């Protein structure tokens, strides 16, 4: 079933074009997407769950779901965001099973974004401090941890994080702002300085 595709051929195509080919029946190209995203999704999962066997199982389920539902993917949008959305749902379900779930109702998504200063927030780049953040993340509540992971570790923009979590961009901003405040306190306790 699987055929070999030249590296050149694959690099020419972006994820969305590959997904479109999969949709139109070139199933074997799905392997290209698996290989490209396997590591990223596993890394994303490790921020939620400690058990690597659990993570491997869930990552497999994520790609199986992606394959099953690939015809619902709108190729005008980013494939990575769509895949992270599936991953988000799967990891949240796993967290729920472990009784460590996100609340159904969240005040951050309820109110308009008066608390979030977009320009100030996006100019303050924490990417250089990413290695330190990693140490403090485990102590952060999942609802704050996830946008930080997606933005600082998976390099997703605020808009893309908003698409993955299906919350307003302003909520992403508020959560990252609060996450940084909380992490500062946690890191200080752990004797790291942000």
């Amino acid at each position, binding site marked *: 079933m699987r055929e070999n595709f030249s590296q050149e051929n694959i690099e020419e195509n972006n994820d969305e074009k590959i997904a479109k080919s999969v949709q139109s029946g070139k199933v074997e190209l799905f392997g290209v997407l698996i290989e490209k995203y396997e590591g990223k999704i596993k890394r994303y999962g490790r921020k939620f769950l400690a058990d690597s066997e659990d993570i*491997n*199982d869930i990552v497999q*389920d994520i790609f199986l779901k992606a394959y099953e539902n690939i*015809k619902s993917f709108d190729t005008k949008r980013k494939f990575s965001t769509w895949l992270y959305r599936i991953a988000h749902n799967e990891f949240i379900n796993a967290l729920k099973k472990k009784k460590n779930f996100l609340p159904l109702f969240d005040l951050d998504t309820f109110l308009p*974004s008066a608390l979030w200063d977009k320009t100030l927030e996006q100019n303050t780049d924490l990417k250089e401090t990413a290695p330190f953040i990693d140490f403090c993340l485990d102590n952060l509540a999942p609802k704050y941890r996830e946008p930080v992971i997606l933005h600082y570790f998976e390099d997703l923009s605020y808009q893309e994080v908003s698409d993955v979590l299906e919350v*307003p961009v302003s909520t992403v901003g508020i959560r990252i702002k609060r996450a940084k405040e909380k992490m500062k306190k946690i890191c200080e306790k752990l004797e790291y300085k942000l």
Partner: protein
Amino acid sequence: MTKNLNNKKSLSDEIFKKIEKGQVKMRPKFYFVLKALLAVCSVVLMIVFILFLISFISFYLRASGIWYLPSFGLRGFAIYLKLFPWLLIILSIILILILETLTRRFSFVWRRPIFYSLLTIILIAVVGGFVIEKTSFHPDLLWRVQEGRLPLMGPIYRQFNRSELRDVQRGIIEEVVEEGFKMRTFDGQLLTVILTQETRFPFEKEIESGDSVVVMGERKNDTVWAFGVRGIEDEFRKFERRHFRSPMRQNNKVK
């Protein structure tokens, strides 16, 4: 959950093995179109149901006269609270919350804070409900229920037959008599209203034959000892000739 015991095997191989065995199949586009259509239909149905409920609550409060009770002072307000359709209000709130949850799956909804979408839903429900209440929709349905032509709607319109509503009457004065007046109620009964020195007239308007009034007071058979009488604008009269003439005639024949 699939147990991945063989770590040496690549994820890609595992997945393609399942695909080849037919354990996982790509869902057709039609499946997702149908799912989206179902989601839209459920939202539309929910909106229709909420509009029906809100407009019914408003119709019920006005048509039964409950709406005007607070103008009779504390006693009126207490009866108003007692007769207020709390269950229907709670049901409406639950349905609004369900609608909010149903609409959250659409990106144009979740991209904005819940505050805005909830406010929009509440505004649509309240404004839409009041607009529908001003039409002949509910008087029409009430008439059909009374004729037995709408058995499914019966339970909701039976609110008008609640025994507690005997203390509130809404109708048109047919004749002013020495001890008070005779009035024809919304559902065609002829009642004698007795006015006493304690009877309250919140708006001091003189009442005469042909006026629409709400009367609050203790009722025994066809006589009401009025605690309060208030003249009101009869917004249902325009529907009355068309829709309520017949039951009134039936009642007249019986009497």
